[in-house]
């Protein structure tokens, strides 16, 4: 390792970690790191916007009558935009941002394969977001994020057209970004890194990108038909003129079921990284985790109609039940492999790890309710009720968002060169975790007992449950600001981060924090096993890096031990 000396790369000799100004992030740039941050910052903005809408939803649901909102239509716009924003402008771009920042670094590459395309894909998002928000204010975007016709065609206003146009742009952005990921991962791995030496996050991004490239064109197709029906007088979805309302449902879910995996596979990747690093133990069953991502990606294309168990022709329901049950198996493999990873390790309760563990404990509930929903007779009772709202939030908040939180604590030092404050991190965690559970778990009960989703008015017997849910939701909403405060505070005052504060073996840590604009000085040599913890070689590898990049005092940033280490040694 020591053979690599800085001056081999002309122009970057001894380059200081690049200090970027805020304005660098507001401009067109083709540096994947800047683009990654642009994605993440944009996504966080929309997270707050979507979260604010969620707070209004919960405020309205404090009472059985419509009172906060002017009418049912205003309420419908609220949850329609909330759902769409959270999925398409928060989780998906946030993950694209993490992927953009990390994939080239994890591969030891200088950038993505197509830097210009990368920037272009990002710059489609702000206008798309503006269209979406505009759609909300124009109004009558009231058909939900699933926008079933004919409510979304014959019975909605211009907001619905803007909604569809916005999704079109976001779809293009996703496809372009994913092509870039696939080519980068296929072609830019360093010498010594075969597919099965790639970090699991990279595997997850690869599987996700394959899904995006295959599925998103179907969304585009469906949206095109919807827009034509709305503005050009066609009747694809209008039964009065020979159209079919189920056509939309089939094509939409052919994209949108896989979209669930678009949102959750990268989260799985994040979790595999975090659990291994913070419990200092190799990932248990690396191949099983890598390949199960691919299995999920594949089987994920055969289950879409489980969202249509109450509308689909009855004879077709059973085949989709079978495929939906099968997909539980590869997901189960992952969960057990993660349990195998932490079992017997040396678990460090960093904020990143706390969130990773909370993911593990909450996602499993979403998995169990998912299998229940796969069972046709049970699904028929709870379809389109709060049971489903609960399920999807356990998967997307308990899954994706908690993993993203963990990822933020884990990679913030790499991205900014400063640590997030661990004490605030723990406060954030201990408020978020119970508030999350109390917000979403009681929703199962409301649904089973008879409360449909997407209603501003409900039967009075559900009020107690809804009040509990709303109060917990307000706490959950507030807890987000602890994270945001932590991010802003730490950017300026956070403790300086060393190159490899978590002593991890993947390549993104084999460079300064933040990395120079060329990412690495010289060509980085990957450690043969990205999770080879517990060996002499791994220890020496981390040591050699510490020597190369220097460590910030204290040598190892492990806050739980830090105080003891300082006082006792």
């Amino acid at each position, binding site marked *: 390792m020591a053979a690599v000396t800085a001056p081999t790369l002309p122009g970057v000799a001894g380059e200081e970690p690049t200090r970027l100004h805020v304005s660098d992030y507001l401009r067109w740039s083709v540096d994947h790191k800047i683009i990654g941050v642009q994605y993440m910052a944009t996504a966080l903005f929309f997270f707050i916007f979507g979260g604010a809408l969620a707070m209004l939803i919960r405020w309205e649901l404090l009472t059985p009558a*419509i009172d906060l909102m002017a*009418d*049912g*239509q205003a309420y*419908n716009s609220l949850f329609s935009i909330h759902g769409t924003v959270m999925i398409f402008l928060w989780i998906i771009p946030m993950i694209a941002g993490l992927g953009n920042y990390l994939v080239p670094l994890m591969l030891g590459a200088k950038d993505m394969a197509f830097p210009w395309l990368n920037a272009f894909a990002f710059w489609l998002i702000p206008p798309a977001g503006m269209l979406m928000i505009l759609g909300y204010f124009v109004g009558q975007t*009231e*058909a939900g994020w699933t926008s*079933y016709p*004919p*409510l979304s065609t014959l*019975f909605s206003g211009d907001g619905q057209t803007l909604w569809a146009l916005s999704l079109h742009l976001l779809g293009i952005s996703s496809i372009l970004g994913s092509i870039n990921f696939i080519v980068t991962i296929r072609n830019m791995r360093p010498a010594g890194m075969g597919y099965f030496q790639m970090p699991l996050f990279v595997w997850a991004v690869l599987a996700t990108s394959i899904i995006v490239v295959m599925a998103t064109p179907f969304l585009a197709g469906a949206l095109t038909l919807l827009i034509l029906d709305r503005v050009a007088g066609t009747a694809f979805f209008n039964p*009065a003129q020979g159209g*079919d*309302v189920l056509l939309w449902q089939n094509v939409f879910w052919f994209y949108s079921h896989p979209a669930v995996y678009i949102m959750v596979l990268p989260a799985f990747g994040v979790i595999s990284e975090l659990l291994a690093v913070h419990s*200092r133990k*190799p990932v*248990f069953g690396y191949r099983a985790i890598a390949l199960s991502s691919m299995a999920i990606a594949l089987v994920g294309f055969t289950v879409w109609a489980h969202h249509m168990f*109450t*509308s689909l022709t009855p004879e077709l329901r059973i085949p989709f*039940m*079978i495929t939906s*049950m099968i997909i539980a*198996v590869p997901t189960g*493999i992952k969960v*057990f492999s993660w*349990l*195998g990873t*932490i*079992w*017997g*390790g*040396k*678990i460090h309760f960093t904020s990143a790890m706390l969130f990773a563990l909370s993911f593990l404990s909450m996602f*499993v*509930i979403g998995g*169990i309710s998912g299998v*229940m929903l796969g*069972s046709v*007779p*049970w699904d*028929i009772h709870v*379809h389109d*009720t709060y049971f489903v709202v609960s399920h999807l939030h356990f998967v997307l908040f308990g899954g994706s968002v908690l993993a993203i939180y963990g990822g933020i604590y884990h990679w913030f030092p790499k991205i900014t060169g400063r640590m997030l404050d661990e004490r605030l991190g723990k406060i954030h965690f201990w408020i978020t975790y119970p508030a999350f559970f109390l917000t979403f778990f009681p929703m199962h009960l409301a649904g*089973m*007992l*008879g409360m*449909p*989703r997407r*209603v501003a*008015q409900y039967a009075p017997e559900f009020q107690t449950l809804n009040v509990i849910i709303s109060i917990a939701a307000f706490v959950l909403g507030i807890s987000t600001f602890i994270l945001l405060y932590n991010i802003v505070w730490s950017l300026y005052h956070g403790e300086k981060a060393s190159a490899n504060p978590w002593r991890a073996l993947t390549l993104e840590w084999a460079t300064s924090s933040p990395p120079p604009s060329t990412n690495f000085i010289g060509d980085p040599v990957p450690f043969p*096993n990205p999770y080879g913890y*517990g060996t*002499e070689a*791994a*220890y020496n590898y981390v040591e050699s890096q*510490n020597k190369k990049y220097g460590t910030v005092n204290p040598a*190892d940033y492990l806050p*739980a*031990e830090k105080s*003891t280490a300082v006082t006792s040694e």
Partner: protein
Amino acid sequence: MSSSHPPSPRSTPNMTPSLALIIVGVVVMIAGGLGFTLFIPMILPPQASTQAQQVDQLFTFLLFFGGVIFILVEGVILVSVIRFRAQPGDLADGPPVSGNTTLELVWTAIPAVLVTVLAILSYTVWINTRAIPANEMSVGATAARFAWTFNYEVGQETLPTTLNFGDLKPEIQADLTDEDGVVHFNNPKLYTWVGQPVVMEMQSQDVNHAFWIPAMRVKQDVLPGRTTEIRFTPTMAGNYRIVCAELCGSGHGAMAGEVGRDGELLGAWLIVFENEEDYLANFFDPAAATVLVPPDDPALLGRQILASGAYPCATCHTLDDLGWTGNIGPNMNGIGDRAAARAQTTGDADGAAYLEHSLRHPGDYLVPGFGNLMPQFNPDPGQPNYMPQSDLDAIVAYLLTQTANPSN
């Protein structure tokens, strides 16, 4: 400082769980799984149909196995964070164990077997709940934003003996004397009795809706352009909410059975009588009878038509006289006074003409502050939202009597 910590792959903590831990674990899993199922009666609506009995049984299995997996996963996490937490200052790694093929095969096989079992159970329940029973009663359902209307076809023998043929509405008389001798009429309530299987034949007049009776555990989307079906057999007498479960627009939440201020049942309800006699005695009373035997006074008739819920006005409009509380459209209190004034704005001849216009072509003139949400009530039986001229005249006559009620 870091060099003072030796790499310690050899200080392996004991990873193999003791037999005692495994036994305790299995016992807790099974007991916990069973424990969860004890809550079922509390977390489900009344179990009021044969379908509900089977679905609940299936749910018991789902909850039991789900509970076992839940306890297993949370248990392993809990034991791990207690037992394998790094001691302060311990910078050594865990053991370099990166897999175990047997274990991985086991935890692939167990979920695979489990979902197979659940799929087979679900399939049998599915087949049973959909079986077509003998002597089922067929009722039509029409969904329109934002109300349900049930369409009955009953033979003459079912009509209560207290009804006098001569008193019946002309259409009903015609119905009775034509070839099939079957009477057609609409009602916002769905009636049946314990043990009588029902099959619903459902159609939508506008957007997608879903017909859901939580107590029966049945749900089926109602889609424009097709007829869909659902079957259930009640096992318990009572009144049960009928809920719209598919987002259908601003009044979606109101498209469910409601309880009025005085405990009366508003909107769609399923009413299950103890037995056939009870059903026959109550079926036509009071709402349906007024449809069969119309009063002569048009305003009274109009009131009865609207009170019967044959048209979905209540979810959108407020009218104290009929206990309507909707707020999607304008308040109808005092509409008799306002109609004449509005007629001048719209160019209609008088208040009655304005009201007729409002029902036949609601989009022509929008009351300020309201959107174009009111369904168009058509004079032609082939069109959606059919409203015969005779009904319309009666409704208009009634609305004109709603004066001097200044709570708008």
